[in-house]
């Protein structure tokens, strides 16, 4: 019988590891893309990055402008930012430590190792590139170790659900913020547009996959891939599919039915991503669609907690 607290820890290990990994990807890609950009577009590029992480308010309370250094400080290590990469890894490790009797020794040692590694990089004053690289590799290793050493029990499905939900929301947000900026943003960005879309694709490791299908970089094709493609492991649809399977495995529901609100909302969103076409979504407004998708993800998370993880106070 799985304790709710343990399921909760597994769910959040998944979310924090995924959040750290996504943030590192965004930082890294942006940094490399901007190395070749004219300085006047510079500021306009770092700002959306802060927006993706949902940290705009807190960031500008601390820094006057967003540039490579301030973004790295804040998104990489800052203890004031609860979503900084270092904080995510610390929290994933705390959770893993709390339940280390329930996970494989390999998984604990891996997360513990990543924590010590990023501390070492900080102490050595390593720059953004090496740091992000270490975190991305850490993310890959995390999935590998989970896959190779964890039993496929309920705990596994809570971990999967955490990863998938976080990744779905992150991809939707990355697309939303860039789309907003690129399509509706100032004229000055025009010449940089296709570079920026390449950066978006690279930040979700989808560039090679995209190029095999389309020779030109077109916003609607990019959106199609990141939102609707069932084959790419970072698309929103793919992850909602993974989430749905895990929720079914936990509750014992069969496809086509649902046992709780989290399953119903996941099923509905997955249906929409399966059967809606990208031009329909564009004509309804991509931004609204993505906004709604992110909101759905947040609501699903709350319902998973309510259903399995939190107990109201019993008096």
């Amino acid at each position, binding site marked *: *019988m*799985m*304790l*709710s*607290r343990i*399921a909760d820890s597994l769910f959040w290990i998944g979310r924090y590891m995924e959040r750290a990994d996504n943030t590192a990807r965004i930082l890294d890609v942006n940094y490399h893309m901007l190395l070749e950009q004219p300085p006047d577009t510079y500021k306009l590029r770092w700002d959306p990055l802060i927006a993706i992480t949902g940290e705009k308010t807190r960031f500008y309370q601390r820094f006057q402008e967003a540039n490579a250094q301030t973004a790295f400080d804040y998104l990489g290590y800052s203890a004031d930012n609860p979503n900084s990469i270092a904080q995510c890894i610390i929290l994933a490790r*705390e959770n893993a*430590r*709390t*339940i*280390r*009797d*329930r996970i494989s*020794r390999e998984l*604990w*040692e891996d997360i*513990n*190792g990543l924590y010590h590694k990023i501390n070492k990089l900080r102490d050595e004053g390593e720059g953004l590139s090496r740091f992000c690289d270490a975190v991305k590799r850490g993310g890959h290793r995390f999935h590998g170790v989970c896959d190779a050493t964890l039993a496929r029990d*309920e705990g596994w499905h809570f971990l999967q659900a955490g990863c998938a939900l976080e990744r779905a929301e992150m991809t939707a947000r990355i697309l939303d913020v860039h789309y907003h900026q690129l399509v509706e943003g100032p004229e000055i960005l025009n010449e940089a547009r296709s570079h920026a879309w390449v950066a978006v694709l690279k930040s979700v490791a989808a560039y090679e996959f995209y190029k095999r299908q389309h020779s030109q970089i077109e916003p609607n094709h990019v959106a199609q891939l990141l939102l609707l493609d069932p084959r790419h492991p970072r698309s929103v649809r793919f992850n909602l599919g993974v989430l749905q399977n895990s929720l079914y495995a*936990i509750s014992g529901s069969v496809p086509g039915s649902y046992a709780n609100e989290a399953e119903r909302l996941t099923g509905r969103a997955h249906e929409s991503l399966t059967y809606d076409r990208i031009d329909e979504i564009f004509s309804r407004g991509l931004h609204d669609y993505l906004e709604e998708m992110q909101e759905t993800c947040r609501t699903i998370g709350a319902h998973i907690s309510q259903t*399995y*993880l939190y*107990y109201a106070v*019993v008096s």
Partner: protein
Amino acid sequence: MFEGYDPGTFYDELVAPDGTPRPEAAAMHEILAGMPLDVFEERRQLADLSYLVQGITFTVYSDGRGTERLFPFDLVPRIIPRHEWDVVEKGLAQRVTALNLYLQDIYGKQRILKDKIIPRHLVQSCKHFRREMVGLNVPRDIYVHIAGIDLVRDSRTGEYLVLEDNARSPSGISYVLENRLVMRRTFARAFEVSEVMPVDHYPNELGKILRSLSPRTGDRPVVVLLTPGLYNSAYFEHCFLAQEMGIELVEGRDLVVVDDVVYMKTIRGLTRVDVIYRRVDDDFLDPLAFRADSLVGVPGLMNAYRAGNIALANAVGTGVADDKAIYAFVPDFIRYYLGEEPILKNVDTFLCSRPDHLSYVLEHLNELVVKAVGESGGYGMLMGPSADKKTTEEFRERLKADPRNYIAQPVIPLSRCPSFDPATGTISPRHIDLRPYCLYDGEKVTIVPGGLTRVALQKGSLVVNSSQGGGSKDTWVLRGNDGGEA
């Protein structure tokens, strides 16, 4: 590695006064003596690394970031021949049995008080005496299921003495098991020839006892280990034992009491719990019964306990057996309850609550060790011979103000064991003690051979507590009396 080793005037566990190894240590001595420093150093670092990678660390919060430190492990084992261990084992079993009978009595008929073997005021003024336990029937009449009895060897007589009893929730067994694991990997050859008795069955034995306490009939009782949580310094041990016993590791917030029944909160709803191996102190166990500000306890747990719906190991209120003033009477308990002479002696103890003892102690402060009765882990202690004047005077005032709270003992010249000194790269003698772990199932006492040997790594130091700069060693009890040939 043993070049120039001088056992000195203290009893040395591995080396005889003439510098030759004792028979039980012959094989290990030969292996170490023949080992180049760099090989030893390499093995030492590998051992340290294995503790770090596994995260077997203490957290020290002095620098704000939370630094994790290793509990230093010394690769030179302590070796005990069988004939010695047999005596120690009998003595421990006798003592743990008597402690249980005493607790049954104190929370039951209180015969021992009526017969004036121990003063009533001394028992009832004890900080850990729990009025709530009087007349409460604990499952199978067992109070102390797990005891850690600290032993020292007096260099003057070569005898083992009991230094203190730990009858609440003694920690350290995980180090015994992990140290053995590391040693087996590091010195496989020595194990081959020396016939060391195994210790790995501890979690199994403990699990058996815990399951036997279940108030419900049925073959699969739900047993859990209750931990204060991640920030407790023994958290690693809690995880380790829960995993080894295959039981759930829970925090207070995972449990809830409904109608005097304890449940744990699972993803499928509430599941009934039968037995709690609790590593949370009495004070914090139930905010409704004890400290109201406890965040790690379970409200209503004592009611469930009183209703007989849950078993707790150890029972509540066992601190009235390991109070350092009560300690002085344990030999009397053995005579009173068992009609036997104590096999293991106590260290002479002055009770500051007795005016004649207090005046002696005040006159001889610089020769004695003074200890607060309810503390453990080396806190609240004065080492008379080495303390500075200011500290001594502070203690003098405290003793006068609250004599019941203190005892004093002569400084025991603890035995020493060869230990590696990283500063000089040589093996030198260091003072040690021994904490065996005793399990009581209501009929017999089971003790895994050996226990935790703690070592004062500072040259000359007599304080072995981990919080005070101590380390640990693997403890070998041999199947026979000599260690074979390497």
